[in-house]
Every structure is written in C-alpha cells, then in structure tokens.
C-alpha cells in the first residue's frame, strides 16, 4: 500500500436506514494508519467508533467512500474474501461475549488456528505461547464461565494475537474491567505491539486506555474532530 500504510480510508461514510429517516454513523472519514501503531478512537457514545472498527474489520461495508485495509478494498470484498482477510490478518477483541462458552480457554485460543488449517504441533506451540503472553498458561483447561472478566479479556487478547495478525481491532476492551485488570491487559497489548510489531486500534472511553495510546483520534457525530499524539507518544519504540 502507498507509503507503507496499513489502513487508509477515503471519505468513508456509513448511513444506517432508520424507519423513514437515516442515521449517518460515519461522515467522510479520512484516516490512515501505519504498521505498528498503537492508536485509539475516543468520543461520545454514538459517535461511530464501533461502526468504524466493524468496517475496518470487514464485518460491515461502507455506504460510500472507501476503506482499504492491507491492500483490500473492504467495499468490494465478497463474503469469502472478507472472511479470508479476517482469518489471516485481523484479530478482534470485543467488549462482551468474547469467548465461545462451550470451549476451554485452550480451545478458544486454538479456534483461529483451526480455521487457518495449521498443523497440530505448530498449533499447540502457538496456543501455549499466546497463553504465556497473557499469563494464563495454568488456566488452559478452564471454561470461560470459570474465569473472571479480566481473565476472559486476556483469553480474548491471546486469541486475537495467537495467529500474529497484522492488525488487532479492540472495541472497548476494558469496559467491564477494574483498574488493575485494565492496566494489566493494556501492558500485555503494549508488549505484544512492541515485540511483534502488531498494529492495535482501540475504541474506548477509558482514561486508563487513553493513557497508553500513542495516537488519539476523537470522533464526534461520525466525523474526525481531532487527530493528535496520545499520552504515550514519547514511548514510541
């Protein structure tokens, strides 16, 4: 992609039909992200943060404009191509319902690798390494219901990074966590960002998250209101 950009949106617009009217969730958003960024979307509720992350993650499509992610134009992807993009290059962390409750911690982290068709031995190494990163090696056999909210979120991080994706999209990853857990998982993600060069893009209201950001983008009513260096900008590796 031009200038080594990982993500580039051009007049990205998303309009939701609502009865007779329509809601403009994103309004001509122009943003670019380079590889290795640790950036966050902030802004009031309803400003379009989730909508933007969903489109960048190819879970949704733009109404107008363009979103180019890892060289793929999201608006032109077929279901299959979109799944492939997510499968190979993007990790997700959601606010709630992050884990498949039926499966163990180990199996949840293993799932993306099953989709990739990775060989069993390599799969096992990768899962154990990912659990190591989030300090949950000893809970591999637990089910999500047996874990605390923070631990669940850490499993979700392990699952998002286990395939070493180029991009991790995290939608309010700390919304349900206390301060200690929030700091813990942010340190984990910052470490992964530093060690693996993975690009992280958050949406958040959380000051603790914001304090770790190296770039902070403020959305208001679906527009980019501010795009500035974050509090952690000087820590850039």
């Amino acid at each position, binding site marked *: 992609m031009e200038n080594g950009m990982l993500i580039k949106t051009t007049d990205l617009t998303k309009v939701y039909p609502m009865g007779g009217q329509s809601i403009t969730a994103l309004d001509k958003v122009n943003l670019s992200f380079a590889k290795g960024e640790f950036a966050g979307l902030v802004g009031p509720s309803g400003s379009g943060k989730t909508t933007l992350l*969903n489109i960048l*993650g190819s*879970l*949704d499509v733009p109404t107008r404009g363009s979103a180019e992610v890892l060289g793929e134009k999201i608006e032109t992807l077929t*279901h*299959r191509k*979109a*799944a*492939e*993009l*997510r*499968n*190979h290059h*993007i990790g*997700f962390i*959601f*606010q*709630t*319902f*992050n884990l*498949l409750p*039926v*499966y163990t911690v180990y*199996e949840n982290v293993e*799932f*993306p690798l*099953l*989709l*990739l068709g990775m060989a069993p031995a390599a799969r096992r190494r990768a899962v154990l390494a990912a659990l190591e990163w989030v300090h949950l090696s000893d809970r591999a056999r637990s089910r999500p219901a047996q874990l605390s909210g923070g631990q669940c979120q850490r499993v979700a991080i392990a*699952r998002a990074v286990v395939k070493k994706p180029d991009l991790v999209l995290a939608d309010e990853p700390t919304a349900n966590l206390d301060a200690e857990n929030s700091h813990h998982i942010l340190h984990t993600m910052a470490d992964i960002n530093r060690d693996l060069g993975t690009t992280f893009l958050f949406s958040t209201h959380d000051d603790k998250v914001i304090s770790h950001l190296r770039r902070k983008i403020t959305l208001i009513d679906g527009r980019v209101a501010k795009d500035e260096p974050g509090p952690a900008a000087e820590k850039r590796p």
Partner: protein
Amino acid sequence: MIRFLTKGILRDRSRSLFPILIVAAGAFLTVAFYCYIQGAEINVVRSSANLRFGHVRVMTAAYAAEADQIPNDAALTGVEALKEKLRTLAPEMDWVARIQFGGLLDVPDAGGETRIQAPAAGMAVDLLTPGSIEPGLLNLERILVRGRLPQRAGEVLIGDELARKLGLEPGAPVTLVGSAMHGGMSMANLAVAGTIRFGIQAMDRTGIIADLADIRGALDMEDAAGEVLGLFRDGIYVHERAKALAAAFNAGPAAPSDSFRPVMQTLAQQPGLDIMIEKMGLFTAILVLVFLLAMSLVQWNAGLIGTLRRHGEFGLRLALGESKDRAYLSLLGEAVIIGLIGSAIGTALGLALAYYLQAHGIDVSGMMKNMSFLMDPILRAKITPFAFAVGFVPGLLASVIGTAIAGRAIYKRRTATLFKELET
C-alpha cells in the same frame, strides 16, 4: 474440525440433547414400526396360507378361472398321482388336498322330517389320517368352542353361530345336501362333533369343516379335489421360491388349451395378498417418508431455535475469520453427528423392542376377545437386516434437512448484525 464440533455438541446440552432425543425417538418409532409391520405381514401371510391358499395352490385352469364360485365340476382328478408328482418336484413342501363346497344343511326333527334348513359353505380337509397336518394348519384345537374334534368318519365341525341358530348341540345329526361333481344331487348324513369359532363372521354363520373322505364320498369325488395346496415346512412364505416352483410346474408338458390341466398359483397371486406381499416395499417407503417429513419439521424448528440462540456464537466465529460457507457446513456437520448418534440410540432401542416382540411376543388375546380367532393374538415383530438401516434414513436425513433449512439464517444477516445480536 470434526473433533471440535463433537466437543461442542457433547458439552452444550441444549445443542445436543433435544435434537438427539428427537432423532432417537423418530428412529426408534421407525425401527419398531418397521419390524412390527414385518411381523404382522408374516402373521397375515401365515394365516392366509394355512386357512385358504397355501404357499402355492394347484387347481385346474377352469377351476382357477372362477375359483370363487367353487366349480367342483372342474376339480382336479387323479389327485394322489398329482401329489406324488408335486412331492418329487418340491420335497421341501407339504402337500394337502382340499375341497371347498357349498350346500344346504338340513336338520331333522325326532321323526326324521326336516325341522330347519340353512345354507352352508364348507371345507373338506384330511382330518382323520393319523399325522395329518390339517388340524394344526387350521388351528382346530384353539378355535373349538363346544364338543370335540372329529374322530370318526361322518363327523363334522360347524360354526358356533350357525349351530346356535339351528339349535344344534354336539352329537346332533345333520344332513348335507349338495351337488355332486358330475351333476345330480348328493346327500350325506353327518354328525356334529363340535362347534368352532373362526372369528370371521361369514365363516361363523355358514362354515363347516368336514373330513375329506366323507365329502369325496358324498360329492362323488373319489381321488378328486378342488385344490391341492403346498406349504413350506417352516411355515415361512418365500416368494422367489414359490414363483420359481410355479413357473417350473406350469411349464410342464400339458397342452395349454386343456382347461382341465392343473395350474399352480403362488400365494402372492391370491386375492388381497398381492398387495400385501408385493407392495410391502412401497408401504415401508411411505412409512419411512412420513417419519422423515414429521421429524424434519421438528428438527427444522429445533434448529431455528438453536441457531437463534447461537447467533452470538456465529457472529463471533465469523468475526474470527470463519467464512459463512464454513459456518454453515459446520452446522451441517453437527447435524450429521447428532443424526448419527440419535439414529444409533433410536435404532438400538427399536431393535431391542422388536427383538423382545420377536422372541416373546406380547399376548393381546385379552384385547381381542371378539376379534378374529384366526389371527395370532400374539403381537410379534420380525427383525430383518434392513431394520438396522431403516432408522437412519429419517434420523440422519431429518437432522440434516432440518438444520439445512434453519441454518440459512447465517446467510440472511450481515455479519455485523449477527454479532450485534449477542451484545444486546
């Protein structure tokens, strides 16, 4: 991936238990019904063979042409020689000669004058030769109501209802008035040894069972018989063998134009039984189809509820990079696993019940006091090799079809919407 799916099915009870129970119930009913029908078919075939038609039936061509009129003037002659020939042709069968006859039953008063008369329809069989299989074929011991079985020439059994109508007690004399084989009236003085109840109204009102020798004498039918029946010794009708035997017999040297030449028919050619025997496959197919349809509907609904409940899971899996095709296929994979497990359980239970019915039977004679006594009062089943497979047809297919329809929801929604439904 199959391991992954199986784990999910085994751990998530609501994903597995209900669907497996439905599949198992359907497979169980299908297998049990199937085996019961097989058993019932064998019962009906057996009693039809024993009472009326044999497994194969030899008559003259002329007699066969209007067998329901009992044209004894076209009866077989030279029966002993014919039976000898049949025994050589098919030594694995028993051969019996029978005469069906109609006539008038005349009951005299004390002075020997006619007191009352009634029409009678009779069957003459070999009752008295020691070792005759006829009393066993007709189940005479069991259908006897009053009196005893005939032990001497001239003794007959008559329908209990007919006996009551005519005011006949065991031991009473009756005269049978009929027409002889070569024309002219015939009369035979007989004694009622006992009364019987067939459980078939027409036969109870008019039926008589007489000894073959008596009726031969009365109707001037020495060494003649309306029909010669052949029965496989194990009592089981094997259509292919019967057909081959009839073909071999009918291909004999007799001139085809001779209307008195003996012809052989199989049980499957007899009225009412053609459907029973030859359309059995169709009945089975319909049975299986009905279960398949009913269960598919149930599975579809169960699948709808199931996938609705799992929109969140699928949203998540799609977000993790699973394609919709793959998610749909995994649902079908689950359906196959559930179908196999459920069908196996249901088939095992169905076969267990069928085996019990086959080995012991359930005696329902209490429930059928007034029903046909000719019917075996023991509910039976028969396990055939196909019984092991028949339950899997509705079981597996219904599970897959139901899920295939319900699972289309995955395609009908945007991934983001699927996902959002779990957050609310």
